[in-house]
């Protein structure tokens, strides 16, 4: 079949402006997008730059967008993308600095962020003889997380990265999970502190886009939530988040439901005058519309006593 590839181009040695090149390629029915690209580079245009390594779905190196859908060039069958028209658009992933053509900056996008979570086990140097005895259930969970092939699709789907490129992102935070929940790691509390740093777990909006985009079913969003839950249990170290979560929990615990006015005040910190002043315009606007909830005037729900009991039991459980 004859396919026209319309490929994103950018040459850092010329004007660096993005453009597109069209290539008409004869391919067989079974061909993948990578087959097409290799053929183009080999026979038609040797200036075209794209990455690929394993060429069969193991490694994530050839991640790109095919007809705007992020996937792997090596497993994307051309026939699956040409049902409506024999044209295929190829672009680099979104929201990532492009170096040349389909080659984008993996370092800035993902590798440097992974390095930022100190992605190595701190082993017990004193252990000598034999392996650590550990249940397979714990190991199976880590194996699942480590089936990640660093393809970047979770980061590409992330809702936060488009507004803040410095957010660590789901790939790096999922890597952090692998150490937070590895019983062999001796870094202990330090692990959570690393994950809780600015641009870390508390900047995640837990929108589940990452989980939806992960081709391996690793569920990065749930992994981030697990780290947060663990931090909640042992004590959140990010002060503002700690204030917010403590206030939230206290109001649900005491009355069964959320006291939003109190939450707003306590999140800023009751002694943080500057922070509280900042709330004033919003509060004034809300008040003018008759919708600002009045803090601490918060009646208990029926059943609140029972909820408090559950709460206390849950808190004991998680310690």
């Amino acid at each position, binding site marked *: 079949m004859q396919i026209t590839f319309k490929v994103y181009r950018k040459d850092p040695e010329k004007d660096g402006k993005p453009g597109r090149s069209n290539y008409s390629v004869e391919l067989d029915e079974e061909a993948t997008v990578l087959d097409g690209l290799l053929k183009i*580079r080999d026979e038609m245009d040797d*200036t075209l730059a794209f*990455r690929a*390594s394993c060429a069969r779905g193991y490694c994530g190196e050839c991640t790109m967008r095919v007809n705007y859908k992020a996937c792997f060039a090596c497993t994307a069958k051309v026939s699956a993308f040409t049902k409506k028209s024999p044209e295929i658009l190829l672009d680099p992933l979104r929201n990532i600095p492009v170096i040349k053509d389909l080659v984008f900056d993996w370092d800035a996008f993902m590798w440097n962020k992974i390095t930022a979570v100190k992605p190595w086990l701190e082993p017990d140097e004193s252990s000598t003889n034999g392996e*650590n005895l550990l249940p397979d259930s714990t190991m199976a969970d880590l194996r699942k997380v*480590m089936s990640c092939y660093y393809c970047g699709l979770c980061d590409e789907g992330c809702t936060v990265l488009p507004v803040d490129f410095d957010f660590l992102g789901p790939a790096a935070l999922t890597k952090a999970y692998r150490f937070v929940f590895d019983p062999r790691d001796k870094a202990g509390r330090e692990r959570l502190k690393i994950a809780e740093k600015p641009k870390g777990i508390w900047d995640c909006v837990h929108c589940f886009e990452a989980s939806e985009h992960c081709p391996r079913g690793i569920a990065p969003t749930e992994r981030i939530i697990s780290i947060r839950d663990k931090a909640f249990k042992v004590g959140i170290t990010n002060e503002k988040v700690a204030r917010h979560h403590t206030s939230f929990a206290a109001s649900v615990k005491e009355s069964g439901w959320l006291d939003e006015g109190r939450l707003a005040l306590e999140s800023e910190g009751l002694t943080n005058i500057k922070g509280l002043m900042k709330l004033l315009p919003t509060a004034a606007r809300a008040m003018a519309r008759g919708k600002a909830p009045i803090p601490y005037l918060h009646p208990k729900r029926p059943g609140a006593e029972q909820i408090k009991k559950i709460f206390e039991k849950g808190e004991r459980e998680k310690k």
Partner: protein
Amino acid sequence: MQAFDVLVIGGGASGLRAAIAVKGAGASVALITKVHPLRTNSGLAQGGLNAPLGKDDSAEKFAEDTLAAGDDLCERDIVRAFAQEASRDVIWLEHVGVPFNRSAEGRIDLRQFGSNSRSRTCYTDDRTGHIVLQVLHEQFERLQIPSFEEWFVTSLAVDGSACVGAVALGLRSGKLEPFTARAVILATGGFSRMYLPSTVSLGTTGDGQNLAFTAGARLMDMEMIQFHPTVFPKGQGLLISEATLREGAEIINEKGEPVLESKALTREKICLAMRQATQNGSGALSLDLRRIGKEKLASRFPQTLELAKTVAGIDVTKEPIPIRPVAHRPMGGIETDADGATSVPGMFAVGECACSGLNGAGRLAGNTLTEALVFGRKVGETATRHAKGAPVKGFPGSKLSDEEKRLAALTSGNFSGDSAGKIHSELGQLMNDKVGLVRDGAGLREALERIQSLKERHRKIKLSNSSRIYNYALTSALELGSMLNLAEAVALAAQARSESRGAHRRADFPERDDQNWRCHTVVSLAQGSPQVEKKPVAGGA
């Protein structure tokens, strides 16, 4: 100029392990790798890595199995030392974080794999390479070792007789730069991409072997190419772990009847049995994974399920997957001693690019990753000792400008019409047809002639892409040059060895000939041409 005590070339399992060992031994070290370490071919390993950890097992039994798979061409002392040290290195790997599958008691679970006579293969589902690679990379990052990723080494620097560094092209910067070192460790992996299809990544092109060979090192046992029996042969070739066989899968003929009488066979014996079956009219062969059962498939072979679906479009829980033997890993490579030293002072080699004689004429399934660990550690320690005693040598003055000129000549012309890809496809087909699972004298002669003409065409390649930034046409042309040189060495060694042994099968010499051929082949360059010699197997009986 970048200067280090030790320079490691290649970011796979062997290279990472070696770099960790060098740093641990107190020398300065840097890694150069043409793809990010987590994208290297080590990540494709599936089945597991051997260590004699079982109650019924011992280093001796492990050594026996390794020797048997090597078909009497192994260096026995090396095998015995390796079998002794394997457990320690695998336990180290567990301590630094590999989440091995566990037994009910919480110990590392062992699976029976290939022709191992005991259950001794440690594994992480069917993603062992991928996960071991990650853990090695984690520890590598922990030591904050400088890592030059997406740097392509174009040449080694040899001053007098000693290796003193390398010249590498930064794919991102487009700059050619010299790296000096007192010792260089080559850990660049295999060269099976000279076969199409094969089981390896696009970059498994024998760069390191060719760098060493052209710098004066020798290549050993190059004719020994292991074919893998259970590979879906379409596209690039998709390996289905042979571990599935011992877990219940069957190789079946068109009628659905099992083809193998036993599964405790070496890979070449399974391959030969498959070939025999096809010649006897079995029709196309396939691998029936349904016999393993859906649940066990999902829990122990999740990657196989996934990739069979995405790459081959086959749901292996519902139907058999077509297979045939496909080129997998070479046993041969850069000749080294027991510690990874080559015949060139200051030059070391480890892993699949090296040949110490550990694997003889056939590698035991599950030994590749263990070899990377044991020999990676050893070569790191040895290279460090060498570096500490080696005098500082200057980088040869004209080296960099020579390389500049060589690359400029390749990239300054008009597109020659001929292309690396076309030559590569012809080479891949040729190697499969004439230097494949079974060879003969006439075919090998023809192969050598055609390799000559392919080399001639390769020399004339001109690229229209004159940029140095991410110029993959340039690196592909260089990789093809390596494969052509090594293909010639493979065919020459195969032509010389007039017997059948291990992975080397000659239709015209079907028997093993211990009298004449219980010895290695060694290929070296003499006045620019490759020469084959014999080298006795040491270490006695």
